[in-house]
């Protein structure tokens, strides 16, 4: 009996002959309603192989698993987390030649390959708030009747992007800016969904989201009343990336997946799959409606190293400013 179990366990532990490529991805990415399934189908047709997603909190899971990780490729890490991911030492160079990106920032990272991006922005409903603040400074000084829902930078990537945005725009005055925002911040939620739900239910006038959010309402719901408020100071950019695990047992397939990322087949799934902007897609190939979305002129971003270095300061400014 014992030996039978042992044999069975060995069989389970042994890699199967044609093992599928394992891609770690955030839950929203690989869900039925994210871009994951379409990308999986396109890649499998492209390479004639199989791939599987494993979902969850990508970075904490990688750090728990260390070199024992079962991942071959990781997708969905954003730039603000990139340095931490790099520091795990688990990643190989992405090995893809980058040119012709349709992003507002230059890209030189050779570990993480960008696949989509968005500006962080406040969204308002034009019927409820016809005259939104004209600039970030105006928002800070705005009438305290305004109500905003944001995400907590301690628990959410979009919240962290806001904290870094405030840091980028206001520098050493970040804490004072937060204190100015405080009376208008109705509430701070753990994640994006709670905030956005409060906004669509009419509880708050504005919500922290992305400049691409109005595209969903416009294209999927035919609703043009949701608009991003554009600030002349510029908007913090969040770039999502993919990377290859150095210890992968399927380097060729992993490389094939990374090579696939900047192709049109992959990129054309992004706009309406992830409601985000593709890293490299001819503007004429964008779905109708997307090109009508107004985008800010100035894009702000910290490099992975800078974001990592400023992270605690940016969060401390948020905590201190809102506790004042």
């Amino acid at each position, binding site marked *: 009996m014992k030996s039978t179990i042992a044999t069975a366990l060995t069989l389970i532990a042994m890699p199967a002959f044609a093992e599928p490529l394992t891609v770690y991805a955030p*839950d*929203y990415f*690989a*869900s*039925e*309603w*994210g871009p*994951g399934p379409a990308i999986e189908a396109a890649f499998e047709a492209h390479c004639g192989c199989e791939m*599987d*997603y*494993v*979902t*969850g*909190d990508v*970075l*904490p*899971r990688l*750090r*728990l*698993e260390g070199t*024992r990780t*079962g991942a071959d490729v990781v997708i969905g890490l954003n730039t603000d987390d990139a340095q*931490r991911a790099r520091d795990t030492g688990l990643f190989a160079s992405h090995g893809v030649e980058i040119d012709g990106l349709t992003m507002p920032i230059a890209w030189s990272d050779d570990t993480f390959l960008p696949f989509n991006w968005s500006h962080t922005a406040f969204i308002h409903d034009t019927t409820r708030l016809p005259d939104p603040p004209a600039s970030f400074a105006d928002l800070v000084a705005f009438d305290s009747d305004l*109500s905003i829902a944001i995400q*907590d930078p*301690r*628990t959410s990537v979009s919240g*962290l992007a806001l904290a870094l945005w405030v840091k980028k725009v206001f520098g050493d005055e970040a804490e004072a800016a937060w204190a100015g925002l*405080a009376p208008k*911040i*109705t*509430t*701070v*939620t*753990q*994640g*994006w*969904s*709670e905030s*956005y*739900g*409060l906004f*669509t*239910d*009419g*509880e*708050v006038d504005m919500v922290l989201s992305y400049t691409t*959010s109005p595209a*969903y*309402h416009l294209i*999927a719901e035919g609703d043009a009343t949701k608009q991003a408020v554009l600030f002349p100071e510029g908007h913090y950019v969040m770039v999502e990336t993919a990377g290859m695990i150095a210890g992968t047992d399927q380097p060729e397939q992993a490389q094939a997946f990374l090579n696939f990322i900047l192709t049109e087949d992959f990129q054309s799934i992004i706009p309406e799959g992830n*409601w985000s902007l593709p890293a490299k897609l001819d503007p004429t190939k964008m779905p109708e409606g997307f090109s009508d979305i107004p985008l800010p002129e100035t894009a702000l971003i910290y490099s992975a190293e800078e974001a990592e270095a400023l992270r605690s300061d940016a969060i401390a400014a*948020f*905590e201190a400013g*809102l*506790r004042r």
Partner: protein
Amino acid sequence: MPLLAVGWRGLAEATTGLRPADWAALRFTLGQAAVSAAISVALAIPVARALARRHFPGRGAIVLLLGAPFILPVIVAVLGLVAVFGRGGVVNDALGALGIEAVSIYGPHGVVLAHVFFNMPLATRLILQGWATIPGERMRLAASLSFGPAETFRLLEWPMLRAVVPGIFTVIFLICTTSFAVALALGGGPRATTVELAIYQAFRFDFDLSRAALLGALQLALGALAALAALRLSLPSGFGAGLDRVAQRWDSASPGLRIQDALAILAACLFLLLPMGLILAEGARHVVDLPGAVWAAAARSLVLALTAAVATVALALAMAHAVTGQKGGWVEVAGTLSIAASPLVLGTGLYILLLPVANPVALALPVTAFVNVVLALPFALRALIPAMRDLQADYGQLSASLGLTGLTWLRLVALPRLRRPAGFAAGLTAALAAGDLGVIALFAAPDQATLPLVLYQLMGAYRMEEAKAAALVLVALSLGLFWLFERGGRHAAT
């Protein structure tokens, strides 16, 4: 054990102490939990009493619906509460119409409001169980002695409350200590930071395992203290055996008491059902459009719920039996305490333990079932321990003199008399497991998503309406399970 695993990995990584902000978080956590638990229990007593002594059409439905808020996904509950108490909510609209200035839900009182919304119905259900344990014969005796409501309360109901309330208070206190998404959303910001949020931040954002384990251990230690203190206060009720007849109440027929009870029930229903109704009604229109993936997830949640319910009741029966034996106090404390374990630390610990031996992702559903058993155990014990104590006190000697032990004892003595609390425990566990999100999010593969996870996926993809429809399905599923188990327990008892 999982906690130790996180601690071990944490020690291996680094060591950091507590920060000043952690102490602030600790004070806030304990303060809001104590207030929330006290208010929940205080409000639950009149409602439970009203439900215990009144019989009217629809009573069964009300008792069943009392189980609903507790299993609502946090995000749905928050939106529901905001629809009633928020800036643009029903309450402020009414106040505005009367010319009264709007009240804000956001702040420490909002946190307490949400926790009372979640836990008051649970407390009512548990206390109602207590009322059901007062034998009908005692009520008849009370009536023949012309007891008024005051005497009935002093001599019959107070001893019962004394036996059950401290345990219930503790359980709710502990639940409130591990809350964070609700506390944050309705607390209005960083001032409402709880220890669980600090754990989440340490684990997910900073990956500082030693800090996560330290905070988790701190939370657990405080929970242990609270559990010990509360259980010391609880006394067995000692009513003796009865014939399990439904108690008719002759003491509470006066119109004043009738009105009082009617008001208690009405107020509770309004407070609990309005927020749920507003959100779920929106979902009702979209239920038919829900894609197949949602129904598949619902089926998975159903299996998970049934597995967890069976396992929990089996374990709880064994533990309740041990508790009533010698040195049982520690078993009771351990069983109560598992609720104070941070679900995140628990899940992570299991992940670390499983990683060297198996693929944790392949085990996502069994692990989720296991964690739910651990988390539901305190509730099952709260329902079963008092019943088991009474069973031992009333029938222990008879069983011993007849030499009834082991399976025979279980079949002839224990099961027939414990069916009602066991049915309640199974129903509650099933409902909780169906609504659980905590651990599955850490482990799941895309094709293993449960209903609550799918609900969050829908919200994350802007599909708020469909998410509300999924919430409706979830509530219906959980209540259906609850109803079936309870019905099974009740039928067997009559």
